[in-house]
């Protein structure tokens, strides 16, 4: 399943890389940080901020995805025990809805 990357504008995540629960955050970061999304001049630029927690912190990893039109999706990856597939599913569901709205408007 592909993510509608064009609908995403911001991405914030905080995780402790030494915990196994941070895996989906790091993998999802890999899907968003592409040559298209990194340059600020690009139309699909995504503002990415990563906060890495210290090693002994027990805070659960979280991510916040901001979409076009101001909609925000916050996923508590650690508490819900999400895997990368679940994260992609949730994000792309919101993204696809936004895409459809945009196409209906035009």
């Amino acid at each position, binding site marked *: 399943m592909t993510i509608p990357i064009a609908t995403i504008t911001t991405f914030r995540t905080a995780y402790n*890389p*030494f*915990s*196994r629960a*941070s*895996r989906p955050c*790091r*993998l999802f*970061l*890999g899907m968003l*940080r*592409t*040559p298209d999304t*990194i*340059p600020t001049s690009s139309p699909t630029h995504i503002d*990415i901020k*990563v906060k*890495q927690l*210290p*090693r002994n912190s027990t805070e659960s990893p979280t991510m916040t995805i901001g979409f076009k039109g101001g909609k925000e999706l916050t996923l508590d990856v650690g508490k819900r025990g999400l895997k990368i597939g679940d994260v992609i599913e949730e994000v792309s569901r919101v993204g696809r809805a936004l895409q459809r709205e945009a196409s209906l408007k035009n």
Partner: protein
Amino acid sequence: MPPRLRISSIQQIPRCQYELRITRSASSAAAPAFTPAASIEQMTRSPAPVSRFPPTQPPSHRNPEYRRSQLLRSYTSLLRTSPLIVLFQHNNLKSMEWAAIRRELTIALQKVDEKIAAEGRTAPALAPYIKIQTIQTSIFEVALRIVEYFRPSESSLASGKPPSAIDPVTQTSAELPAISGSKDDPALTHDLSRTAHAAVKNMKGMHELSPLLVGPVAVLSIPTVSPEHMKAALSILAPKESGFKAPTRKANPEYHEPIVQNGLQKINLLAARVDNQVFDIDQTKWVGSIEGGMDGLRSQLVTALQSMSSSVATTLEGAGKSIYFTLESRRSVLEEEEKGPEGDKSESS
């Protein structure tokens, strides 16, 4: 063993003139000693009597022809030879971006080497040996386990070597007992051996770094623990996360080109491994902030110890001194008392 053909008989055989000349010179050189003396190595160590495999290719559990086996060997050697390793997460970097980042990295490291040389310290130039490379995380994890947890016993190490001729127990004619050419042999203790595999199999995912080895990971390997080089590398690769200042636009305009900057935005600092210990980002920053490298740390330690020793000496001396001063003052008082009346007398008389 004497030569089978006598030299005179060799000379009698008709040959062309060039060949004859060569034989003559060769024979005259070799004449005093027909058999060269055995080298010390040959006298003290007897060769393995029966070798069932080439010495460079011992039987192994993992097939040495596969790329993954050779990658494992290169990773174990990397982990054993570089005490300072920094791990990065990298996402979708283009080859051009990698090339630009590597170029900036080498320039920064060369500057550190020049600075060390200018200060007159005797540290070897490390810049050509510091590399950043992407790794296969699953293979790297196995290599990490082999390096950290696999300790072959002395006996198995010894049995893998050819018997010693000095030791009277072993004889030259003794057959190698252990190495039979089978993969199951416990005497085989190289990284691809079945012994190594079995020893680290149940340690899967137990290493501190193993949760980090997810997704695309790159390692920066430094062959000695040199905080200065690490600081320079981090100031190039992760200036924001590490807090070390990146070169200014004026000092190094190439660093601020979009190709480098776009690449760097896709690199994250993850952790470091310093002398077999795993450090997170804050601890990595601390290592990088050691001024003057290892020499600086040593000099700090020396000054701390020296100041401590001198303060201890003064404290210990203090008690003796105070006793001395008390007694001395008491003596002077007593002397004055003794002298006092006499002085008065002399004055009066």
